[in-house]
Every structure is written in C-alpha cells, then in structure tokens.
C-alpha cells in the first residue's frame, strides 16, 4: 500500500502489449454473452418494464396518478430530471476537461463515462417530456411557427433548459461517436462474420488509420473538448436556473449554478465508480481500468463532496445573514421541519460519508468504495428532492401548506429510469468497445516514438 505519488504511475498496468490491449477490450464483443450477462439484463429489464407499465398507465389515466399536487407541483419528475442530468456530467468532465488538462489516465475510463453521459441524459430527458402527460406533444417546446403567431418565451429558464439539454445530448453523442470511429475500424478488421462486418464498416465510415486523417482528427477532438467543457458547465448552470430564477425562498439563490455543477460532478463520478467497479471485474479489464483510476475518481468525489457541503453551509449562512425572515424560515424548516429526515439523509450521505475517502486504504478498497459511492448516489438524489420539495411544501401562505407523498407510480417510474440506464449500460458493454482501443494503445508503454532520446 505504499505508493509514491511523485512518480506518475503507468496508465496501463501489467505491461500489456498493444495487441493484448486490443484483445482484452474486444473480447466482450466477440464472445457469446454468458449467464451473468443475461441475469443482469433480466434484472435491469424487469425494472425497465415495471417503469414502462406504470408510465403507460399514467398516460392512459393522466398524471393525477402521481404525487404532484398543490402545493408541491414539482415532484419526482423534476427531481429525477436534475438527478440524471447530474449523473451525465461526469462523462463529459472525464472526456473533455481531463483531456484538456492532459490527464492521460482518462483514456481508460473516458469511453465508458461518455456512454454513461448519453444514457443518463436520455434518462433525464424522459422526465420533462413525460411530466406533461402528453409526451407526443413535446415538439411544442421548441420554437416553431405556430398558426397563432406565438413563439416560445426565450427568456424563460425552462426554454433554456430545452436548448441546453438537447445540445448536450447531441454534442455528447457526437463526441462519443467521433471517439468510436477508429475503434469501429479496428472491429471491422477483426471480425469475419458478414453481418458484423457490414455493421462495423458502416459505422467506421471507411476509417483507414491514416495519419493524414489522424491529424485533423486530433484537432477536431481538441476543438470538441474545448466546446464540451463550457457546455457541461452551462448545462447544470441552466438546470439550476430553473430554480434560481424563480422567487421562491430556498430556490432564489445565486450560489445555485456552481453548487449544482459541483453536485453534478460529484454524483456523476459516484455513478461512474459504481458501474466501473463491476465492469472491470466482469470483463477482466483490471489492467486497463486500474485501481489508480478508481482512486483518482474517489479523490474527485471527496473534493466535490466538500464543495457541496460548503454550499449547504453557505445557504444557511446567507439565510441568516440576509435577514430575510422567509428565507430563514425555509432553511430552519428544511433541517427541522417535516422533511428533516430527507435533509439529514442528504447531509450524511453527501458530506459525512465521503470524508472516509481521506484515508488511502479506503480510497483503494473496492468493496468499501462501492458502499460509499452508492451512499453518494442516494444522497444526491435526496439533495434534489430536498431542494424541490421542502421549498415548495411551505411557501409564503401558511393556509396552503401541505406535505408531499409520492405514489407507487412515482417510485416505479424512478426505478424504471434506473432500469433503462442499466439496460443501456449492459447492452453497451456487449455491443461496443467499453474502452477506447486507439486511445489506450497510444498511452501504453513504448507506444510513442522516443525521438532518439532527446525529447
């Protein structure tokens, strides 16, 4: 357990040759799925199905089946939306921000994290659409030329949201696909079955690993990373505007954008660790997704967890310092009111438990970190719940105070979204290379020219 942090650890462990790396990453796609795969798929699929049935019932009967009602008109749908968008942020952060910071270790986990971004944003996007109860009319959210001559209100955060989330989904997808093109070419050259070959050829677009292409490709990657970085910050900022631009005490706060972004990265990294712990084990990728990777992510979790904790504290301080009575009431009510249970779940999961990551032993112990990151996931879901529900349930008018109770439909649809997420993740592990083959090859030992020792 004695690691010297002054020397950069090799990104790929076990002295794998380039060919072996490829072999390892391509293996899941070339072998028949085993029992474990089907068991995992059936579990996540059942959750998905459960959610889908409850959702269909909600469409048929109307969303009155959910717990949303006066005074808490924003219930689970918005909580889940913010939660899932947040999960997505880790992927872009790993693939874009760490790329710009020249962090080589990102190569092993970037592909997976990007895929998770896309899946998480898909899960997130479902909620604003279904909460209308008539999802097939969602197109009206975009500015379109209506016969009434009306436009959407471009100064509304909810419209910003539509633009931010759809841009985010598109850009993440493009980024991901661009990274996949060389790997599709690798897979094309590996397989011999006709159907697979056709599919891989189609998606590889005829990639030839040509350096004349690599040159532009690297430039494009750089440009995309440069755009994805402010984009990812903007997305959760705009999501936080949904709250912060309103005048409701508990929401109307300038700390929201950075606080949301930190929370998003926090929860996103927790989710990436949760999933990677299993993936590296199941697919024997321990040499590529190493313990060092997990440790680094745990450090990020520790850092962002403390930012979130700072924001919790600062909200209270500002409430007291501002001297605004309603504001003070909201925060006291948050911590000691009817939803105190949710508040303290949030604080313990997000602020207290991650403190364990100060210990190197814990950061590098897979079972312990798994437990901690699951707590973080739970805590971050509750954070959104606390923000949404506690601010709404007791507003300015005591006569209209109330309590929010979710129904089985709310909970089922939330579980369904987890089912969707994990189903997509599981299918992804079998259908596409979970690690970027060409990127990992490029950082393997001896992969780059030595420039005659003068570099």
């Amino acid at each position: 357990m004695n690691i010297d942090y002054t020397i950069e650890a090799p990104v790929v462990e076990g002295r794998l040759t380039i060919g072996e790396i490829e072999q390892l990453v391509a293996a899941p796609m070339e072998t028949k799925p085993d029992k474990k795969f089907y068991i995992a798929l059936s579990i996540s699929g059942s959750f998905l199905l459960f959610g889908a049935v409850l959702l269909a019932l909600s469409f048929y009967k109307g969303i009155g089946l959910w717990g949303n009602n006066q005074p808490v008109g924003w219930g689970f749908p918005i909580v889940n939306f913010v939660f899932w968008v947040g999960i997505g942020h880790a992927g872009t952060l790993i693939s874009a921000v760490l790329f710009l910071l020249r962090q080589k270790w990102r190569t092993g986990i970037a592909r997976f994290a990007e895929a998770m971004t896309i899946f998480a944003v898909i899960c997130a996007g479902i909620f604003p659409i279904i909460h209308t109860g008539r999802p097939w009319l969602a197109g009206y959210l975009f500015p379109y030329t209506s016969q009434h001559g009306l436009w959407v209100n471009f100064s509304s955060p909810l419209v910003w949201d539509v633009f931010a989330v759809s841009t985010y989904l598109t850009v993440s997808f493009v980024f991901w696909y661009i990274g996949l093109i060389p790997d599709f070419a690798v897979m094309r050259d590996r397989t011999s079955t006709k159907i697979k070959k056709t599919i891989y050829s189609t998606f590889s677009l005829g990639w030839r690993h040509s350096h004349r292409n690599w040159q532009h490709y690297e430039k494009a990657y750089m440009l995309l990373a440069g755009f994805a970085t402010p984009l990812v910050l903007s997305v959760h900022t705009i999501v936080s505007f949904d709250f912060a631009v309103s005048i409701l005490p508990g929401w109307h706060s300038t700390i929201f954008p950075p606080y949301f972004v930190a929370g998003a990265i926090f929860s996103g990294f927790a989710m990436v660790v949760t999933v990677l712990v299993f993936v590296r084990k199941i697919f024997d990728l321990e040499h590529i997704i190493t313990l060092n990777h997990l440790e680094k992510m745990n450090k990020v979790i520790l850092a962002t967890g403390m930012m979130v904790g700072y924001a919790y504290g600062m909200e209270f301080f500002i409430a007291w310092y501002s001297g605004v009575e309603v504001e003070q009431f909201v925060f006291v009510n948050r911590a000691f009111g009817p939803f105190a249970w949710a508040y303290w779940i949030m604080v313990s999961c997000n602020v207290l438990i991650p403190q364990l990551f100060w210990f190197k032993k814990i950061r590098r112990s897979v079972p312990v970190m798994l437990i901690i990151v699951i707590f973080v996931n739970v805590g971050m879901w509750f954070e959104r719940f606390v923000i949404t529900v506690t601010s709404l349930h007791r507003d300015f008018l005591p006569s209209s105070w109330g309590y929010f109770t979710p129904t089985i439909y709310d909970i089922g649809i939330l579980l369904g979204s987890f089912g969707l997420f994990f189903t997509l993740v599981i299918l992804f592990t079998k259908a596409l290379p979970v690690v970027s083959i060409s990127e990992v090859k490029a950082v393997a030992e001896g992969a780059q020219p030595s420039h005659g020792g003068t570099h």
Partner: protein
Amino acid sequence: MNNKKFYGLTALFNTPNEIIKAAKKLSSEGYTKFDVHTPYPLHGMDDAMRLKPSKLGYITLFFGLSGAALALLFMYWTMSIDYPMVIGGKPFFALPAFIPIAFEVTVLLATLSTVIGMLTFFFNFPNNNHPLIGTDYLRSVSVDKFGIAIESDDEKFNNTAVRAMFGSLGAVKVEEIYYPDTETFPLFQKKFIFLLLTFAVITSGTTYFVLNKLMFMQPFSWMMLQDKLIPQEKSEFFADGFGMRVPVEGTIARGHKPYEFKGEVNPSSFLINPIVPSKESMMLGKKKFLTFCSPCHGNFADGDSRLRGQFPNPPTLHTKRVRDMVDGQIFHIITNGQNIMASYASQTSVEERWAIVNYVRALERAKNATQSDLDEIKKESAANGK
C-alpha cells in the same frame, strides 16, 4: 489480378521509431502521395510527414460565430418584432436572458459543423470502397503494426526503387495494392423492388392508422375521455337522471334584459327607434338582415324565399301594411315573432334589431322611390363622376 488497376505499394514496420524514420525519408525524397497508417496518432508524425497545420479550426470558428449571430437575431426578431411581449419587466431585447440560448446554439453549430466538415470535406467519408480497406496491410495496421503506403500516382513512383527503399528502411512486409472490382447494383432487382413496396405499404399503413385510428384512441384523443359530464349524458348523481341542468328559476344571463312586451300584439307606442341611421349602422343592419331575414323574406325583402316550399311562404315586406307600420312594430315582430315567424331575440342584440329595422326601411324606400329620391341619386352619381 493483372487486369485490376494498381493503387500502390505498402510497407509494414514494427516500431513507432522506424515509421517516423520512414516518413521523414519519404517526405525528404519528395514523395507527396504517400500516407502513414498507425493504430493511434503518433507524436511527431506531422513534422515527419511535413503536414501543414489542420485548417479545421476555421470551419469551427465560422459556424460558431454564425450560430451565435443567428440565435441572437432570431430571438431579437421573435421577441421584439414579430410578437413583442413584455416579460418580467425586461426590455424586448433582453440580452442577458438571451445569452444561454445563444451559447447553446453556438456550441451546437460549432461542434456539428466541425465533425461533419471533417468527415465529409476533409476525409471524403463515407468511403468504404477505398482500395486499402479489407487488405492484410490495413488489418495489421489496425492492430499494432505501423504502415506506409505510396500511391502509384505519385510522380516519383517507381516500383523497384520504392521496394528497395522500403527494404533499406527495415520494412517487415511489402505488399502491392490494387483497386477493388467496382460492384454494380442494378436498379430493377426483385429484392429492391420488394423492399420499396414493403416500405410503401408500411408507411402508408402507419399514416392511415395514426391519422384515422390512433388519434381517436385514449390517450391520444386530445383529452376526450374525462371524468365529467358532457351534454346529453346521463347522470347518476341527480335524481331525475339528467346530466344537463336547467338554471335556477329567475336566472338571467349577464347583460340580458327581459323583453317586457312578450306575447303582446302591438306595443309599438312604447318602442321608439333610438338609432339615427348612419353608414355603420346601415351596414350592420344589412349584414344582419342578410344573415337572419333573407332566407325567408328574400335578399330585398320581396318575399322570394330561398326555402323552396319547406316553410310557408313568408310575405314581402313591401306591402302597404308593413310600410305603414311604425318602427317599433317591426322591432316587436323581430323580437317577439309573429304567428309562424319565430322570435329572433336570441340571435340578435337590441341594437342589431333596430339596425335591421332601419335597413328594412331603406329597402322599402328603394323599392318605392319617389321622383325626388331619383333626382337626389342622379345628382349624387354625377357628383361622383358616374
């Protein structure tokens, strides 16, 4: 093999250092149509191949800027010109509130244009017919070898010289590459036509289903199914079983004044025409007369009904009897009805009824014009130059 077109020569190397050396050699010897193929981008290869810096950034810049400009212009046009609306007390062009969307559109356009521009414009993708694709050479390069390919189109290309050079550079394998046979796909193939037909059936079937069936099914039926009573429906709640209820006795609609002469024969002494004929009120009277009275009484009140005997023929309104009526009498007939002519009180307002009366008067005068009327008209037409 020999009748195929020759593409060029390829060589495989084992290490990144060797390939860099080879690329340097080729570019210094003046070859231009050569390419290096490596499983991942190699540092220093741009210089070795003497490549100019990528110009991709210009596409990004151009489309990024136009994204910002387009978004701002569009928002300005919609919110300040096409449908100006004050929102939250902000000015019509509320720049801070437009920044988020302008930013998102910038990012979207910049990234999409970069990627699409690179793939199509710089790479000529999709290009699965390239002679290198499917060769052993590319397969090795895909895994862990480093390859170099010289096209036979290169001015300096000479098969033996290039082979010798590759040998001296330490190539492990040299391969000749030929263009693949071009495959042709005839248009009128059974399979293809069948595919087209299937598509046609599926799309038209789906369209028919969606527009004629699906839109009338719950929950797509625009909220037709609701927990409420609609007119003519039975109610379990009320003892008499009727869903539609009559208003409580004595209820009157807003703005409604009960007509106090209902059922009387001639209350005209109490009804005095309050409207001085003006052009507007005449036009209103004309409109209402043509709408409500003309089907029976005819467009000019001649009694030439358009009802073709489906209703007892109504009288002309040019009889002496009607002409001698005072205005109030006609008003009363419209409001109250007379014998089989029903009341028009619910279709017309008090003001409209008086306007109709004035219009009927005008029709009557026109049909029975006096010489002085005609003179008046002639004078007026002359003044108007007709």
